[in-house]
């Protein structure tokens, strides 16, 4: 069966350190993978998109890698800040129309 797995345990990290989140998938051939941020009671907010033929993408303090052989994406937040505290969702799509399959998300807590 198809699965998208993210670490269910909250990631507690000290301000200034790098947070690294993992997204593993099985029985998918994604055309692209996206990362979203979600705050409690709010809708997800798009952060980064990486296509199947790309290895790495960066945006400001964010970096995402995509390894289709390992079927894994890593999401990094460098120089983390308390404002980065949120749940981060990984989402896959197998077509260009935008149907997204989401993981359950990983909560990140950044302490001063």
């Amino acid at each position, binding site marked *: 069966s198809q699965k998208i797995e993210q670490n269910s345990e909250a990631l507690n990290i000290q301000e200034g350190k790098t947070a690294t989140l993992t997204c593993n998938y099985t029985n998918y051939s994604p055309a692209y993978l996206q990362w979203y941020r979600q705050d409690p*009671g709010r*809708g997800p907010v798009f952060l980064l998109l990486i296509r199947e033929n790309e290895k790495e993408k960066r945006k400001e303090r964010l970096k995402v890698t995509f390894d289709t052989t390992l079927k894994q994406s890593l999401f990094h937040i460098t120089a983390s800040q308390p404002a980065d505290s949120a749940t981060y969702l990984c989402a896959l799509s197998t077509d*260009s129309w935008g149907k997204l399959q989401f993981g*359950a998300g990983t909560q990140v807590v950044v302490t001063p």
Partner: protein
Amino acid sequence: DAGVTQSPTHLIKTRGQQVTLRCSPKSGHDTVSWYQQALGQGPQFIFQYYEEEERQRGNFPDRFSGHQFPNYSSELNVNALWLGDSALYLCASSYGTNNEQFFGPGTRLTVL
């Protein structure tokens, strides 16, 4: 630009009732997708509308139906509500094959 808007914000219904949720996409967007998010889970794809037609559908029963209007706004209808339908219902809009999706704040549905 108001972004994606949804109404109502909260809704309480009893089992067996019917509900209609509404979504206005971001200006310039022509595609609307609906997701259901249970507590502690990632969003689950319900269906997607483009050019007033249902283009894709997730694994949801026929009790879930929708509509898209000429101005691209959309409705989600759920018939014969049961307790398991209690969730946050999210609307997301996008344009063409630009896969970044913009989510609304969601409608919190509680079925008693």
